[in-house]
């Protein structure tokens, strides 16, 4: 093991991942079952109130459904059933709303839209913000750089939702350049042809842009600050003494050293970014997990709501894991013992 420190790091990290997922899911279970009553009774009560109709033998009905949903038995029994179903079989139970369709069906339908929107937006934001921020730090004496930095300072602090509102209003309602909602034109069949793909791009442009405009400027500011502190390092002076060109120094000495803290920062920001993405989805009625979450919450579809919550946690933790596994490539000091 000692001879393969990177392997040790990977295994440790995966172990931490599994532990964290288990921990978070357990906490979610505890929380959901600490709410008094159970979802079935609550659902029945709401139905009764809504339709002003008392269901005869409601108890029997409730008990029957509870057994079907796996909500009978002691708390401990439910817990183990829950772990077995959710973690091992990815079975979240049937959706209340469209019984008996399993909840995970809807979630897995919505998942690609969320991941796609978020993934592309984050990738573009980070790369753009990192590169431009690096250049801003490198050329911080130029007045243009100061101007862009000040602009970024303001834009980066506007919550993405508001950016979305502004874009929606200007481009969708005002200029009519982009559609207002949805992920694609409902009139087009889902297929791998240009019609469909271009519709997807059109519909995804504004939501993605809302996220990118805010995040990219944020990455610009933070990268710039890191680059400015790197500029004072000894190895920068040495690089200049070697007669390397400015471009080479910027790429291999400045930016490569700015990468580690920024990749770490990316991993830490994912939870926050997902929050923003969900809100943007609700604004544009984009059919991702954010919209599904709200609709299932409103309909008291307990399984779907819980499922999305768990899926969100799993999503962020998985993305964080992947980034952490990428670390040894970015910074050779990670996972390798040094003699100092």
């Amino acid at each position, binding site marked *: 093991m000692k001879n393969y420190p990177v392997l040790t790091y990977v295994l440790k990290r995966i172990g931490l991942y599994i532990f964290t997922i288990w921990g978070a899911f357990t906490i979610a279970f505890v929380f959901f079952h600490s709410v008094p009553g159970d979802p079935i009774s609550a659902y029945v009560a709401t139905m009764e109130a809504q339709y002003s109709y008392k269901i005869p033998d409601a108890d029997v009905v409730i008990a029957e459904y509870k057994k079907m949903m796996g909500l009978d038995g002691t708390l401990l029994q439910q817990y183990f059933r829950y772990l077995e179903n959710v973690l091992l079989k990815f079975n979240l139970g049937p959706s209340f709303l469209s019984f008996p369709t399993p909840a995970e069906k809807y979630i897995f339908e919505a998942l690609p839209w969320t991941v796609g929107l978020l993934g592309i937006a984050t990738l573009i934001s980070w790369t753009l913000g990192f590169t431009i921020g690096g250049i801003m730090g490198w050329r911080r004496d130029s007045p243009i750089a100061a101007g862009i930095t000040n602009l970024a300072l303001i834009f980066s602090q506007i*919550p993405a939702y508001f950016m979305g509102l502004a874009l929606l209003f200007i481009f969708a309602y005002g200029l009519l350049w982009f559609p207002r909602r949805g992920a694609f034109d409902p009139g087009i069949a889902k297929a791998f042809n240009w019609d469909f793909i271009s519709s997807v791009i059109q519909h995804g442009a504004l939501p993605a842009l809302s996220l990118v405009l805010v995040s990219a400027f944020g990455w610009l500011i933070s990268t710039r600050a890191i680059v400015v502190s790197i500029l004072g390092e000894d190895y920068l002076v040495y690089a200049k003494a070697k007669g390397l060109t400015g471009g080479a120094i910027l790429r291999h000495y400045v930016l490569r050293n700015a990468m580690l803290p920024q990749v770490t920062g990316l991993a830490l920001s994912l939870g926050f970014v997902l929050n923003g993405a969900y809100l943007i989805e609700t604004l544009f009625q984009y059919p991702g997990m954010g919209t599904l979450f709200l609709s299932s919450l409103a309909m008291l579809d307990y399984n779907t709501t819980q499922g999305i919550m768990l899926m969100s946690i799993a999503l962020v933790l998985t993305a964080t894991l992947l980034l952490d596994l990428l670390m040894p490539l970015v910074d050779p000091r990670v996972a390798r013992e040094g003699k100092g």
Partner: protein
Amino acid sequence: MELRHILFRSRLLLVGLSILGVLILIALLQPVLNRLLIGDINPVSMGTYKAYEEVSPQHPLGTDRWGRDWLALLILGLRYSLIIGALAGVAATFIAVILGFVAGYKGGRTDAAMRTFTDMVLVIPSWPILVTMASYIKGLSIPLMALLLALFSWAFGMRTIRSQVLSLRAQPYVDLAKVSNLKDREIIFQELIPNLLPYIGVAFAATTVGAILAETGLELIGLGPGGNIITLGLMVNFALRWGALALGKVELVFAPVLMLILIFVSMNLINIGLEEVFNPRLKRVTGG
């Protein structure tokens, strides 16, 4: 560091504080301003005026669907948004100070465990959880909502407290105090806390931003303290639900949005400014 020194060390801090100061002033003066605008009428009561009035000197932001003066509501909303945010910030700072203190003072394994815990809380997306919790609680009151928001915002301030406690603890006068047989509790209150006060302020600024962000996240989808309590986020939610954008009544949407943006920008500037002052290793954010 003297207050005067702190204030003038950072331009960003100054700008942020000024903007926030104006906003707080407006919120404090809400009863007076309300009287100036619409007399003794409660801004929340419906049917006071005609619905969807145009922007005019009597109604600088027009009226909404229920015939309420939007500007009067805006000032009221600002007031409540700030109150909830501040309450949540206080609660969150309280939690952050306790947790950060324990982590920094005990050190070692306790510290490592708490840092992992804090990172986990930061990583997990808070919005779905907050929304679920908020919707399950019947009768969300302001204090309850503030508590809920605090449950997730504390993580932003914990690190500041922790690192400061760590560095204070390593100071020689703590060892001296320990040698002279002062009890842990006395050390904490007499030596550490006074030096911690400015950092508690920094933590408060950080947690409050997080709290207001979370608060807005809930209100934008319509969750909030019920009844007659209007907040800026709720105003945006209402306006969107009424289809204000399609109706062309943009001021209904963008007035609260702009107000919220001002709050966020000013608070973030304060945070960045505070970091410039208290973390001198970080060069100034603008101007190199």
